[in-house]
């Protein structure tokens, strides 16, 4: 008897649940259809301009973190945010500064105030107007210390934002700031709809409302992110209806899905996969440079590495071409400066051509004719082929009498231990996200930036400090460039690091896709993408 009652109740619940589900999905279908019809009418409107493809499937290796650009710190998510939001200015593929939401700009005579004329008639995805107030709200949000934006320092030079009128904004700094425009290109300088900040409050991180080419639709954690085209995009509506970013962590899997046509674009494939795909006529591989530089930070404040000659020997002992060609499959360029060619202020300073004999001589001059023993710390899986590069360095140094032991760390533990300064050498990468020498050199070479800041090599040269300080406040481009050239040359000669290479990036897509912009900052812009 009891049992029967139980089963009856259970059946009841089940039927109810099922009917509820059924009703739900039915409703959803209807609204879907309605939406489609609406979209169709829209489509016919601009059919004279371009054919709009239904969907674009992009495979990414890592999932999004936060869609609040003021809090986002990983380049994988920056790619999504860059397609949802706009900045006042932006980089093009050659890292030149172009207008974005600002049409034009000028600097005051005292070099302290920048005036930006804004695009008119631009609307946020929530229908509100983009204006000077929005710029002010966004920047002040980043600068609010209590809010805790982890990239506040990028805009920290700004002291005042003033909305002069609806479409003019003044940005002031206390001292002249040479890299201000570059800083405004950084993802953290994205303009968010002020209304959305009020509407969503804490939940803004999953409700991004920008002015960008694509609107946020849905994010399934660990699975996919869906964006849809913004028909009112001020630079022209994009030519795909929906973009699906799917999370596929395994490189080989991304390559296979692209090859089999189950996806249109695959981000960040390693060279082992792109080599294989290159023979496929249906797939196009686009390679490009980045602003990143890979290096071994030599601890300038510890043991034998305090000696400049030893540090130079570490550089001469390594044949960087071997690493670039054999391990990275050519997907890098050998370093000839502390910053990469796509960073503003780069100057080809000098190369440490591999010379094992010279390395041995330098070691002998420094008083170590029998060689030295050091420890190299390496992250695992953080940078492309990181442990492999470390193993190769170990083998190469061995030939010059530099015996190196490797210690492999999980990345976060590595960073927290490096702060304590107890290491000899550590393999790291530096990617100046403003694409400017100020960000490329100051944090990593200025003596005020010792750990816990980013000068992890404990490099200390007063001449370089002075050059970096004055270049920071120099607005004249040529004068600034000269200062950086000199600083770079000194840093190379001092052998602050073992300078390795500038990694390249690869974008792989089906050959019927075109118009994707790939920036050296490793951002992928889809606003001009087309798919036949």
């Amino acid at each position: 008897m009891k049992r029967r009652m139980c089963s009856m109740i259970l059946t009841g619940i089940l039927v109810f649940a099922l009917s509820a589900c059924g009703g739900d999905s039915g409703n959803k279908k209807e609204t879907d259809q309605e939406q489609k019809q609406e979209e169709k009418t829209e489509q016919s409107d601009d059919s004279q301009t371009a054919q709009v493809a239904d969907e674009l499937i992009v495979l990414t290796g890592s999932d999004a973190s936060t869609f609040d650009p003021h809090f986002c710190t990983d380049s994988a998510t920056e790619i999504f945010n860059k397609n949802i939001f706009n900045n006042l200015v932006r980089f093009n593929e050659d890292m030149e500064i172009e207008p974005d939401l600002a049409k034009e700009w000028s600097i005051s005579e005292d070099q302290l105030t920048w005036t930006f004329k804004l695009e008119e008639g631009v609307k946020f995805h929530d229908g509100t107007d983009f204006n000077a107030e929005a710029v002010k709200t966004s920047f002040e949000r980043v600068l609010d210390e209590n809010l805790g934006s982890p990239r506040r320092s990028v805009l920290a030079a700004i002291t005042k934002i003033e909305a002069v009128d609806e479409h003019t904004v003044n940005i002031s700094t206390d001292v002249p700031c040479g890299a201000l425009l570059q800083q405004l290109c950084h993802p953290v300088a994205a303009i968010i709809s002020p209304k959305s900040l009020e509407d969503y409050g804490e939940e803004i991180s999953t409700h991004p409302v920008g002015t960008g080419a694509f609107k946020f639709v849905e994010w399934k954690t660990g699975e996919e992110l869906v964006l849809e085209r913004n028909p009112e995009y001020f630079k022209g509506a994009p030519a795909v209806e929906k973009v699906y970013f799917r999370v596929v962590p395994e490189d080989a899997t991304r390559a296979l899905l692209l090859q089999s046509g189950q996806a249109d674009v695959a981000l960040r494939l390693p060279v082992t996969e792109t080599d294989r795909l290159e023979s496929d006529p249906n797939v196009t591989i686009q390679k490009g440079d980045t602003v990143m530089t890979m290096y071994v930070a030599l601890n300038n404040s510890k043991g034998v590495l305090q000696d400049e000659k030893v540090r130079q020997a570490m550089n001469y002992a390594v044949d960087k071409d071997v690493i670039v060609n054999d391990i990275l499959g050519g997907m890098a360029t050998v370093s000839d400066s502390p910053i990469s060619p796509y960073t503003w202020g780069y100057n080809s300073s000098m190369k440490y051509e591999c010379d094992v004999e010279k390395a041995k001589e330098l070691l002998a001059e420094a008083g170590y004719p029998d060689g030295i023993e050091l420890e190299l710390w390496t992250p695992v899986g953080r940078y492309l082929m990181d442990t492999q590069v470390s193993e190769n360095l170990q083998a190469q140094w061995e030939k010059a009498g530099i015996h190196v032991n490797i210690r492999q760390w999980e990345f976060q533990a590595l960073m927290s231990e490096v702060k304590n300064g107890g290491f000899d050498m550590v393999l790291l990468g530096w990617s100046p996200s403003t694409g400017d020498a100020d960000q490329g050199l100051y944090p990593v070479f200025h003596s005020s930036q010792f750990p816990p800041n980013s000068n992890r090599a404990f490099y200390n040269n007063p001449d370089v400090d002075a050059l970096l300080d004055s270049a920071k406040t120099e607005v004249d481009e040529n004068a600034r460039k000269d200062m950086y050239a000199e600083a770079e040359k000194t840093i190379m000669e001092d052998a602050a690091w073992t300078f390795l290479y500038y990694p390249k990036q690869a974008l792989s897509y089906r050959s019927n896709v075109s118009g994707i912009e790939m920036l050296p900052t490793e951002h992928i812009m889809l606003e001009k993408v087309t798919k036949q």
Partner: protein
Amino acid sequence: MSTFRKIMRNPSAVVGLCILLLLVVVSIAGPFLVESPYEQNTAVKLMPPSAEHWFGTDDFGRDVFSRIVTGAHYSLLAGFISVILGLTGGLLLGAFAGFYGGLLDQILMTVCDILLAFPSVLLAMAIVMVMEPGIYTPMVAVGISSIPVFARLVRAQFMSLRESCFVEAVRSAGAGDLRIIFRHLLPNSIGPIIIQATLRIGSSILLAATLSFLGLGAQPPTPEWGAMLSAARNYVWTASYLALIPGIAITITVVAVNLIGDALRDYLDPRTRNM
């Protein structure tokens, strides 16, 4: 001696022991016999197995055969060291819990249950991350994560023996607690503990390899088998032999240990002895 002979009558034990001996010999003598497992020569990278490179070469052109041979000691060490650690810890905890019973027992066993509630991979991962990286770190982590397993087993053995007549007899003869635990209870319950320890070597080797596979194990350039498999993941399309050989090596090692464990169980466990 006669025990050993009896066990040796079991063919699986003979096979297991032979493989294990061979592995020990390989791991001790091997590194002197093969060419350098670290020598990189990218001119011959990713060559399939041939007369010159029996197991082919990896993505740096290093000889896979040399690497497998050189890596043997690591897996064996990982298995034994972690089990010795886990056994020692488990023995101490389990012995006291089982002998004294009461609140101490309840607390210790609750802690064990709590630790056992975590998947062992995650527990080992967390312990590795807490410690500084080094060659013994993964082994210690695997060892710690197996302490609760041993503790529960030892405790169960001790519980059942605690009330038995011979303990009463020894106690009335004036023996102290420690003496009873280590001289009388332990030898009498050692059988199942040895079985568990032997079988645990196998799973410890697997767990250590898993940690390496996840990048939290052996330090480079040690050619650890799990790490080699992890590296092979990028080459399943182009050089699938790279994923084959380290896996076979791990499996053979674990099979050998498990064969011995099974034979020991057949011999020591009276319930299955006659089957």
